[in-house]
């Protein structure tokens, strides 16, 4: 039984969301996608799902620069949650600030989840990442 993958896109840029969704739609098996304009609303959705015993995302596209709660703040809070499954978080940012890359590295080593780091633009989505979730779940 292969479950549909559940994917969150957390980004305040409508064009990026459009692009990611378009790329995902090209996959043979279209996953279920939810989008959020900032980290706060995404975090609320996850905590609600946990409370209600609903499905939490397998894969999160996470932007860094966002209003209200940015990507790092979201990550900080997300890592505190007690989750059974291993979630892949793909940080997608237009930032080329080396500080951001360093931050990612330090989070990656201290987390049980899988953290990826990609600079915008995204032209394709590595199927491997999504497939591996399939296998894992």
């Amino acid at each position, binding site marked *: 039984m292969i479950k549909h993958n559940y994917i969150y896109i957390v980004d305040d*840029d*409508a*064009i*990026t969301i*459009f*692009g990611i969704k*378009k790329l995902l739609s090209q996959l043979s098996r279209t996953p279920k996608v939810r989008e959020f*304009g*900032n980290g706060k609303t995404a975090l609320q959705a996850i905590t609600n799902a946990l409370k209600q015993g609903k499905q939490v995302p397998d894969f999160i596209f996470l932007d860094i*620069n966002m*209003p*209200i709660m940015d990507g790092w703040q979201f990550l900080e809070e997300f890592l505190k949650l007690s989750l059974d499954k291993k979630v892949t978080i793909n940080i997608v940012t*237009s*930032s*080329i*600030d080396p500080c951001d890359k360093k931050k990612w590295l330090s989070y990656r080593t201290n987390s049980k989840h899988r953290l990826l780091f990609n*600079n*915008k*633009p*995204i*032209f394709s989505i590595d199927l491997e990442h999504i497939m591996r979730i399939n296998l894992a779940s």
Partner: protein
Amino acid sequence: MLKTTFATSYTSIIRQLPTATAFVDSNLKIAHASNSWLDFFELKPQEAMGKHLLEVFEGHDHTEWKKCLNKCFKGFTEHGLQHKTSSTGDMQWFEWTNAPWYDDNENIIGIIIQTEDVTKRVESEIKFEKLENLFKEQSEISNVGTWEYNLFTEEITWSDMTKKIHEVPLNYSPTIDSAISFYKSGHDRNTIAMLVHNGINKGESWSAKSKIITQKGNEKWIVSAGKPLYKNGQVTRLLGTIQDITKQVNAEIKTKESEQLLRTLIDNLPLNVFIKDKESRKILVNKSECEYLGITNPEALIGKSDFDLYDEEIANISRDEDVHVMKTQKSILGKRTVSVKRDGTSTSFLTSKIPWLDINGNSQGVIGLSLDISEMIQKEDQLRDLINVTAIQNKKLINFAHIVSHNLRSHTANFSMLLDFLINEKEENEKQRILGMLSHASDNLMDTLENLNEVVDISTNVNLEKKPLNLNEHLTKVQQNLAGFLHKNNAKITNTITDDFMVQAVPAYMESIILNLMTNAVKYKHPERDPKISFSAKREDNVTIFSIQDNGLGIDLEKYGEKLFGMYKTFHNNPDARGIGLYIAKNQIEAMSGKITVKSDVNTGSTFSVYFNDKA
């Protein structure tokens, strides 16, 4: 009878002879002696008369005398000079003559001894000889020569030393004219000619320092002294000395020259130089020190201590240093000191104090050197300020570069992605959708560039001129521009600022700052109440503070405080939020050397305070 008479008178005559005389017979027995003879040898008549001559003068070596007496018996007359010591211990000199004593028949019947006291003569001779030697020695040691000029014969005589001084051969014979011509022509020669003239005609003595040119052409410093000698009230001779003082004068000149050199050096050093005695009283100051203390005459500072020149506190510190240096004999080198004069002016010095020792190695004072480094310190401070400013600017610049790169990158990334989609898209509808997205992305890019331009303008126009601005006039103007917006949101404004309140600011920035803050106060209103805004202003030292308070949403400063004034940071789910207003306001305020602070409580409201620097 006659014979007896004669004999008696003969004896008495001999006794009364003025010349000390004694007659001894052929047996050397004293037959007669004058009183003067007896007196000279301190003999009583009974000790001498009829006694053997050699027995009377017992205790002396008589070998020579015996020979002499024998010669007399053979008809010779002998002379001699001898000395004896009187009973009072004085040296007495006498000349003696021993001659044969003939009777009427020319037979030698004895010897006539005559003595003459020549002590005085001999003494004066010795004295003269001594004096002459002494004088010769003296003249050689002190280079003093003598001369004598006889007015009648017009003869001038020079001593050997005088000749030596003039560097002429010892057989040189000068004339009064040639003597004067040795003096250097001009002042020296005129002076000596006049002095000699006055000596002859007015009887005046002189002593003068002059220069002579010796026969060998050497220039010498001499002291020439002269004194007229009188005979019967007439000047007959001039006597004088001439002393070679070239060495002394040269040494003196050299000393003066090195003193002058040292003084010039000390005075022209760009240092305050002073020497203090054991009690810290100044005994030497240079020009710089005088100028620093505002005194033209260095003498006015001599003998003064720091207690006379500075307040007690400053003077005490200085005195303690002096005592320390003198006690330990160790220098204080390059110590940074601040000296405050009585008029309150303070100067920074780099001071060195060095112990001044006497020949025996004991401290006798302090040598001080102070370099005024006020200007240097001022420059240093300016430099430090500049470095700080540069560091801040640099940080800002890096920050700005990141913002720019991030913002531009996010748009270009979107372009890239959309174009990639467009190329690969087959469906016409989807193509149109992507094109729409592209145009949206292009608008976003334009907006971003405009925003960035605004920021660059602020950062490049650092030197915009500040003017005194009426705060209320500007508030009213912005209120009028926002009238529609304020009315729509039902905003109420209270203003406690007086109409004459002025602020030093750049006019364009002032309006932009007020606009941003006022817009924010309304934009982030609380959903449950109408916005209420109040303006206030106050003045603290050199700073004017303008505050704008609202009753809006408020901001969680603990979470967002750091980012509040950052670029593209928004904190509320407000579709109008651009995240640039406060960033620009902050840049504008900082460009005017001011600052902006915020106090806020979530759900209660916020107060933004703008600090305007009153200085230009």
